[in-house]
Each structure stands twice: as structure tokens, then as C-alpha cells.
């Protein structure tokens, strides 16, 4: 049986622990934050709707067999939303599951050798490959076997599971670099030198709100070294990665911090130690690109215009003569259970190695014998929810889930994607001329929708008019992709209200399609010469937004029939989101404060002040591992963990209490205090690295073992309050007793032990933990 990775018995035994943890959580005996840390590592995320979960299933190299896909669809129907969701990182997800069904899903996945372990968390994430690797006639060589074996190796190494941050790997099958190897932590690009298979190696790229283009780490390695490089980088990251501040914990930040030379030197310290160890070479599985030897399916011959159009759009020749690859575009990445069944029934006849997920949330079918293309067409026309009848441009659009399921979402890119589709198919634009044109949309500055690598990209922002807010998108353009080593991200050009984006896209594409030939299809040149100016002039054209009274539609986002509010934004589910979420709140505080100062009145002023208080209160909760379930709780947590701990002045107690009670009008009387609160939180954030903890360690904080010293966790408490607390704790002890306190690195460790000693106590031991914090053992004297 074809497998895209091997689950180890260790992973399976971890699931038993996970099952117990779920039960403990359901019984109300585990803090939700602690549970979150556990479940995310098992690929289980909570959706925007409370107590509704999604499960992300690893598909190394984007591969899944028909038998596996059928099972996933079955599980999705039984326990979830009834459809399989295809993601931008070549994985599949089951949405809308309840927590008590999660284990049933995971066990179901195990039956077909699939796993959700590592779907999230600080670990080796799904390893991507070009979806047509090995079948594309332009394949340098097939990289799938490397990705498959590398996945199996890495996920079975215990030290892969507690990295400072997520570790993303991608492998491209040729120099067109369709996996964006420079936009990922570690990227390999296949290149043959002197007859020897090998790779160019890029490192430290990443998208997100602070994107970085990856650097060349190794100019070329023979293909035997794939594992050695990954292992060395992983070891280096494990040791040098910033665990204390997740703000800058991805490999891209480590590179930035060390600089080219230091980074490479450090890397080589690890790499040189192992690079000659041939026992570490990957033992590559054979991934055959062929159909079953005997297919007992009666051939269906299709003909007609529709069939021909479909064929010309979606069917491709393979490297293997007589076999075809087929793109199956999905609507918003969703595959219905009954559609999955239809498809898998057919593929069962063809073979196991027939499906890849691609990064545009579509399915790539491979190894289909030419004579069965009619059969496949027949199947696809029976499927209820594909975009196969439309030009490929439509299905190639990428969008994140946005505000629909993601708590960070500002806008709703799914709704927008539909709206653009509606708008474009009602025109006679020759979309078939721009098949590869990439329109990518994200609901917020995080790049789940990959707007950085778009030809025309959008990411959500908040627009404002007369104190009302409306959904808006930043417009990005001009990513340079398609050549390994030369990646450039798209740049922001302008912004346009969400409502007008479909018109904007239409107007822009009309010009591009028209001028495409004149520019010899050189889109970058078009952008430079007139495209950007065109974007600006179109944005200008759509700049004037009517008031809410004149046209409330502009204040509703696509796909949602009510006025945009920020109230339903919440804390990030993905651990990754925390810093960007902080940033979103920070920017919003700044923008709102600006608006207030400029002179808002009435309702708008009240809303703005409330918003400032709300975001100021929420902004840093995540750094204390707090996950407020309600708005009121946001204010409570803020008062408890920031005001009473001395991080934020007590003068802000009143305004946060008013905000908590929803007394927005009252806030107007305290305008200055509200503004000062916003500033105070932003200032605290600026000073944060050393003195705030980013991780809850509920166990450490609460554990008071019956034997041994009393323990207190004062991480995240700034000087001198940490000393004050230490001193108070010592007062409760009797002479000779021991106290162990946990302190942050920096000021706290420099000051507190000295102060304690000055008071005449004995400092017995100071130890630094792997994540940087200190444990100090004190004897009361």
C-alpha cells in the first residue's frame, strides 16, 4: 500500500495520552489554555465558533490515496461539516467537529495510516512538494520520495516535537520553484549537476505579517544530503531559536538576528559534524507514477464542446506517455462527501498514486490513462461542487477562511472570492488567457491566503467613514515568482473597499488581458509601466465611499448580511497568530486614538473609546496565555493580570470597569484616561521582551509539592513587584524553609536575588531553564 508517511508507535501511544487529556478537559479539570497547547500539537484547532473544532491531517508531499480520502470524507460526514477542506499547505481538514468526537476521528484516520499529529504546534509541519512533481514533463527529478521519507524520519524523532516554533519545509521539482522555497523555513529546489541529482537549499523565508524572503543556505547539495541539512538546521534551531519571545521565534528571525555569516557558521557547526555520515542518507521509497496494470472499467467516450473546453483547460500531458494529469478545481477548497465518493470510486480503479493537494486549494489527479479521461469527465460532471465548468482562473484564486472561522479575520475572503467569481463569469473577459494569474486573498495581515506571492493580492483591513467602519482590502501586486532564488514579494499599492473589489478586479483584468500581448505576457513590466498606476487610479475611482445611510451594503462584507463589527474578532486560535494579533490590536488602538484626537463626536466617539479600551485590554492577554471567553472576561483578565500585578497603573481600573459594563457613554467623560490606557499598553508591549512571559506554565505556577521547597512563579512580573512578591512569600515561611521562585531573564534575575540576599536570606541556587527563565532557590534566614 502506498503511504506518504509512517506513523510511529510512539505517536500512537501519545494519542492515548491525548485521549485521556480530552476526557480530563471535558470533565472540566483542565484549563482550556493548557488543553489548547496539547490539542494544537495534535492538529486540533478551535474554530471561531466556540467548542467547534477542526482537524488538520498531514499529507506529506500533498499526497493522499483514494482510500484515505474516502475515509476522511466519511469521517467528515459522520463527525464534521460533511466536506473535506483542502488547505493552502497541501493538507486536508475536517471542520465543525465536537470535542468528544475528536478521538473517533483520529482513530478513524489511523485506520488508513493518516495522522493529525503535527498539524499545528512547534514542530515539523507538512512538507510540501510541487503538486506535479514526477509527472510534469519539466520535472528535473521527482522530489516526492524525498519529502515522504524526510517526513517519516523527522516526525519519528522525539526532538522534532518541541522546537521553538513551527518548522516548514518545501521541495520544488524544478527551478520554477512552485513551492516558493524562499518563502519557507527550509526550501529545496531540485537541480542536476554533472549528472548528479541534488538541490539548491534556501533557508529562513516566511510570509506572515512580517514577511522575509529566504536566503541561499547552500548553493548545492547532492541529493544524499537532504536529511543531513534538515537535521542540522533543526538542531541549530532547537538550540539557538528564540523560545522566550515567540515574536521572533521562526527561523527567519534567527537569521535576521545572527546575520548571514553567523547564521551560516552556526549552521555548519551542526552540519559538518554529520554531513559525511552516510548512514543518515534517506532510503527513498519508490513512488511509481503509473496506473494499475489491469483496469476493468468500461471506457466512456465523451465528446462535445464542453468536454473539449474542459480538456483544454484541465487535462495535461504527463512525463509518462499515455497518462494524463488533471486539475480539479474546488469551490473554496471544499470537497463534498458525496463528491469525494464519486471521485474515489473512479480512482480506485486507476491506482493509489493518483491524488495530490495543491497550494491553490484544489486537487491534482495524476496517472489517469488517456482512454479513461472520458470516464473522469463523466465523474466530474456528476460532482456537485467543483468549479470544473469554469475557467481555471477562478479555481486558482486562493483565499483564507477569514472571519468565517478564523478569529483574527477582519474581512471575509471566502465571500469575496465568490463575489469576484460571480462578477467575472458574468462578463466576456477572456479568463482563459490568464489561467495562471494569481489572485490571492487573506482576511488580515497574516498570510494564510498567500497574498505576498500573488499577481494581484488582497488582505483585509478596516475602512472608516464618518466614524463608521467598513470592510476594506489592501491591494498588493507584483510578486516575482517562478524562478528559484529570485523570489520577491508583492508590494502594497493601494486600498479599496471590499464591496468594490470585484469591480476593481474586473476593471484591472480587462486592461491586462487587453494589453497582455503587447507586453509579451510580461506582467511585471506591465505593472511597472502602467499597471500600478492603473491600480492607483482604479482605487481612486472607488475611493469615495457612501455613508451608511446612502448605501449600507458597503458596510456589509461579502457573504455576510450585516454591518461589519469588530466585536466578533477574538483571540487567535493558531499559536502562530499571537504576535500578529497583538499587532492588529496595536494598530487599531493607534488608529482609533488618532481618530479620537482629530475629534470624533457622539456615537462614533463612544465606539472608538470603547474599542481602544477593549483592544488595549485584550492586546497582551495572549502573552499571559489567557484566552478570554467573553468580552467581559477580557476586561476582568486585564485588570487581574495587568493592573493588579502592577504592569499597568491602577488609574485604569475605572475605565476598564466602565468598558466591561458596556457603559460606552461614560467613557466619553474619561477620554484622556482611555487614550492613556491605549498608550500604556503599547508602551508595555514595547518593553516586553525580557519581562513578560509568553507561555503559561500552569503546572509550574500551581504546583506546590508536599515535599521540597515552596514554589512560586513570578515570571512575567516586572521589577520590583517580583521582589515584593518574593519577599511576601518568604515572610510566610519559617526560618530554614526553602523557597523556589521562577523569574524572567534580564532585570528580574539581576535584581531579585541580590535584594533577597540584602535582606539577609541565603540564595542557594540559580538555574537557567532552556527557554531562558530562571529558577532561584532561597533559604529563609
Amino acid at each position, binding site marked *: 500500500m502506498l503511504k506518504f508517511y509512517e506513523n510511529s508507535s510512539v505517536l500512537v501511544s501519545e494519542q492515548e495520552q491525548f485521549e485521556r487529556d480530552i476526557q480530563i478537559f471535558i470533565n472540566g479539570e483542565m484549563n482550556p489554555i493548557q488543553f489548547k497547547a496539547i490539542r494544537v500539537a495534535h492538529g486540533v484547532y478551535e474554530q471561531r465558533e466556540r467548542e467547534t473544532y477542526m482537524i488538520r491531517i498531514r499529507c506529506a508531499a500533498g499526497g493522499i490515496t483514494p482510500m484515505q480520502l474516502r475515509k476522511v470524507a466519511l469521517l467528515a460526514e459522520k463527525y464534521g461539516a460533511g466536506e473535506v477542506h483542502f488547505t493552502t499547505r497541501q493538507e486536508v481538514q475536517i471542520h465543525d467537529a465536537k470535542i468528544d468526537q475528536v478521538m473517533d476521528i483520529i482513530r478513524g484516520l489511523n485506520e488508513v495510516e493518516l495522522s493529525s499529529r503535527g498539524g499545528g504546534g512547534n514542530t515539523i509541519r507538512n512538507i510540501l512538494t510541487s503538486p506535479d512533481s514526477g509527472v510534469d514533463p519539466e520535472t528535473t527529478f521527482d522530489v516526492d520520495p524525498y519529502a515522504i521519507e524526510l517526513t517519516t524520519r523527522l516526525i519519528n524523532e522525539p526532538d522534532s516535537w518541541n522546537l521553538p516554533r513551527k518548522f516548514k519545509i518545501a521541495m520544488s521539482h524544478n527551478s520554477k520553484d512552485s513551492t516558493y522555497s524562499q518563502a519557507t523555513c527550509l526550501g529545496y529546489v531540485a537541480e542536476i549537476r554533472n549528472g548528479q541529482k541534488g538541490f539548491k537549499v534556501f533557508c529562513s523565508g516566511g510570509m506572515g505579517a512580517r514577511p522575509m524572503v529566504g536566503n541561499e543556505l547552500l548553493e548545492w547539495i547532492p541529493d544524499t544530503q537532504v536529511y543531513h541539512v534538515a537535521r542540522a538546521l533543526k538542531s541549530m534551531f532547537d538550540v539557538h531559536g528564540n523560545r522566550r519571545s515567540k515574536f521572533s521565534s521562526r527561523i527567519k528571525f534567527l537569521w535576521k538576528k545572527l546575520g548571514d555569516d553567523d547564521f551560516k557558521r552556526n549552521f555548519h557547526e551542526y552540519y559538518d559534524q554529520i554531513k559525511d555520515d552516510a548512514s543518515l542518507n534517506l532510503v527513498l521509497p519508490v513512488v511509481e507514477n503509473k496506473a494499475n496494470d489491469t483496469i476493468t472499467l468500461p471506457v466512456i467516450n465523451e465528446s462535445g464542446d464542453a468536454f473539449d473546453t474542459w480538456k483544454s483547460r484541465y487535462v495535461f500531458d504527463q512525463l509518462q506517455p499515455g497518462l494524463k494529469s488533471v486539475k480539479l478545481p474546488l469551490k473554496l477548497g471544499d470537497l463534498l462527501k458525496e463528491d469525494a465518493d464519486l471521485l474515489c470510486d473512479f480512482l480506485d480503479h486507476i491506482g493509489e498514486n493518483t491524488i495530490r493537494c495543491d497550494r491553490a486549494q484544489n486537487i491534482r489527479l495524476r496517472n489517469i490513462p488517456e482512454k479513461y479521461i472520458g470516464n473522469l469527465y463523466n465523474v466530474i460532471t456528476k460532482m456537485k461542487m467543483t468549479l470544473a465548468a469554469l475557467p481555471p482562473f477562478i479555481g486558482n484564486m486562493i483565499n483564507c477562511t477569514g472571519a468565517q472561522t478564523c478569529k483574527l479575520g477582519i474581512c471575509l475572503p471566502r465571500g469575496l472570492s465568490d463575489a469576484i467569481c460571480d462578477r467575472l463569469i458574468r462578463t466576456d473577459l477572456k479568463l482563459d488567457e490568464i489561467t495562471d494569474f494569481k489572485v490571492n486573498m487573506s482576511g488580515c495581515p497574516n498570510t494564510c491566503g498567500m497574498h505576498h506571492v500573488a499577481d494581484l493580492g488582497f488582505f483585509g483591513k478596516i475602512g472608516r467613514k464618518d466614524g463608521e467602519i467598513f470592510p476594506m482590502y489592501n491591494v498588493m501586486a507584483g510578486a516575482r515568482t517562478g524562478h528559484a532564488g529570485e523570489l520577491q514579494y508583492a508590494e502594497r499599492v493601494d486600498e479599496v473597499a471590499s464591496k468594490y473589489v470585484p469591480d476593481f478586479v474586473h476593471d484591472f483584468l480587462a486592461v491586462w488581458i487587453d494589453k497582455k500581448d503587447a507586453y509579451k505576457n510580461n506582467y511585471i513590466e506591465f505593472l511597472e509601466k502602467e499597471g500600478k498606476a492603473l491600480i492607483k487610479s482604479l482605487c481612486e475611482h472607488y475611493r469615495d465611499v457612501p455613508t451608511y445611510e446612502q448605501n449600507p451594503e458597503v458596510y456589509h462584507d461579502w457573504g455576510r448580511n450585516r454591518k461589519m463589527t469588530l466585536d466578533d474578532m477574538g483571540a487567535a486560535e493558531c499559536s502562530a497568530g499571537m504576535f500578529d494579533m497583538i499587532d492588529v490590536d496595536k494598530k487599531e488602538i493607534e488608529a482609533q486614538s488618532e481618530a479620537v484626537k482629530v475629534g470624533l463626536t457622539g456615537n462614533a466617539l463612544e465606539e472608538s473609546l470603547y474599542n481602544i479600551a477593549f483592544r488595549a485590554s485584550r492586546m497582551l492577554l495572549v502573552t499571559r496565555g489567557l484566552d478570554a471567553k467573553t468580552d467581559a472576561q477580557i476586561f476582568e483578565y486585564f485588570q487581574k493580570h495587568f*493592573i493588579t500585578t502592577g504592569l499597568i497603573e*491602577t488609574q485604569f481600573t475605572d475605565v476598564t470597569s466602565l468598558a466591561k459594563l458596556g457603559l460606552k457613554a461614560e467613557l466619553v467623560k474619561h477620554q484622556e484616561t482611555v487614550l492613556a490606557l491605549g498608550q500604556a499598553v503599547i508602551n508595555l508591549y514595547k518593553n516586553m521582551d525580557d519581562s513578560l512571559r509568553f507561555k503559561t506554565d500552569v503546572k509550574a505556577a500551581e504546583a506546590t509539592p508536599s515535599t521540597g521547597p515552596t514554589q512560586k512563579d513570578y515570571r512575567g512580573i516586572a521589577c520590583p*513587584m517580583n521582589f515584593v512578591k518574593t519577599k511576601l512569600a518568604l515572610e510566610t515561611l519559617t526560618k530554614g524553609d526553602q523557597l523556589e521562585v521562577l523569574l524572567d531573564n534580564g532585570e528580574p534575575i539581576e535584581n531579585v536575588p541580590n535584594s533577597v540576599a540584602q535582606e539577609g536570606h541565603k540564595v542557594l541556587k540559580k538555574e537557567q531553564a532552556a527557554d531562558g527563565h530562571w529558577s532561584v532557590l532561597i533559604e529563609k534566614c
Partner: protein
Amino acid sequence: MMSLREDQIERYSRHIILQDIGGKGQEKILNSKVLIIGAGGLGAPVALYLAAAGVGTLGIIDGDVVDASNLQRQVIHFTADIGKPKVQSAKEKIEQINPDVKVITYYELFTSENAMRILADYDFVIDGTDNFPVKFLINDACVMAKKPFSHGGILRFDGQTLTHTPGHACYRCVFHSPPPANAVPTCSQAGVLGAIAGMLGTIQAAEALKFITGVGDLLTNRMMIFDAKKMNFRTVKVKKNPKCPVCSETPEITSLIDYEQAVCDLKDRH
């Protein structure tokens, strides 16, 4: 033992950090009861600092209302308080400074009649009055009730203060009896630099806190005197008078006396 709430730990952190005070010392402060006699020039800073320090119960006795001429030095009263009983005005401010403090007000004069009853509830007494007869009354009452107190007096640019605790010199050990009425001007007649009230009042407040927490050496058997014109501070030793009419083994005075008040407008007394 009570334990400090989180917000208290923060509010009083600068006390707790002091090696001599710590959490236990702060708890003592929170459990203490101090009576301030006179909510005027001296009483104002004393009340402000003791409130901020978290003294659990502050009693304030004063029979006057706020007058415009008070505002130059009696910093606990604001312009809008004119006409308001001083005890009421003070209470309002204290409650804003620190909700931990329980304020008990006595809108009356401190007299031989009410003295012992009122004193009984307190651990430490502040003499914030400005006339000799009441100062002697306070001294006598405190000695008899065995209550420690801080004496304080200001005039023009000068101030003096002494702390009495049982067993140490009392005010009468130093000054045998009040001067004849009218022989000495009260500050309302003689004038006083407003800031002097702050200088002396804060010394008295510090003495109260030292007494409560048991920290350091009190101004017992010492009188501190300063001249703000020259900014000259000195302490003079004073001895317990074995023949003191009130604190000796065999006192002459065994009941409280209301001496004749200096002749001045009662309304403008402090």
C-alpha cells in the same frame, strides 16, 4: 494574620520593599488606628500621608468649618469646601486617596468631656492643634490614658515636635503649664508660612508610622526644632521630669482641665 490582597501588594509595594517594614509591617499599618486632633495645617498633611500609607482607621476631630483663610496651608481642603465641616472635607479626600482607610469623624471640639472616650479607641494620637490649652489637654489625656502621641507646633517660620510614649518625657515635663491667655499669639494671629505646616505634619506622620511598625528611634526624650528661614534643624534632649505634674509617680493633676482659650475668633482658630 490577614493577608494582603493583590491590589494592596501593588499599592503598598514601596513599603513592603523596605527591609524594616515588609508585608508584616504593612499589615500592622493596615490594622492600626490613629486619631488626628485638628484637621488644620498639621492635621492635613498627617491625614494625607497616613491615608496613603494605609492606616486602617483614621479618627479626625475638629469642630470647625473650612474657611477661605485656611486654604493657604490646610492642603486637605479645597476651595469648593469652604463652609463645609473640616472633618467632612478631610474624610472625602481620604476616601479618594485610599479606600482601604476607614475614617471616623468627630465634628466637635476636643474637650475634657469627650477626651478619654474618644482616645480609648486609638493606638496613636496626633496633636495637630495650634493653641496651648488644647495641647496641654491632649498631653494630659494621653498620659492618663497611656496613649502615645506626637506633639507638634508651628509659628511663623518655626516648628517643633516631640513624641511621647508612656515612660518618656511628656509635654508638661518640658513646658510646665500653658502660658497665660493672650501671652502667646496663635498662628492665626501671628501668621505662618504654609509650607511649614507640611514640613512638620509629615514628620508627625512619619513618627506615627514608625511607632506602628516599631521601626527606628522615635523623637522621645528629644524635641526637634527647626527654623525654616535658616533651614536649620536641631534636636534638643529633654528629660522626663520626676516631678512632672502629670506623668510623675505622684502626679498633681489627676483630672483633665480645660484651660482658658487664647482670645481669638474661634472661627479662625487654626
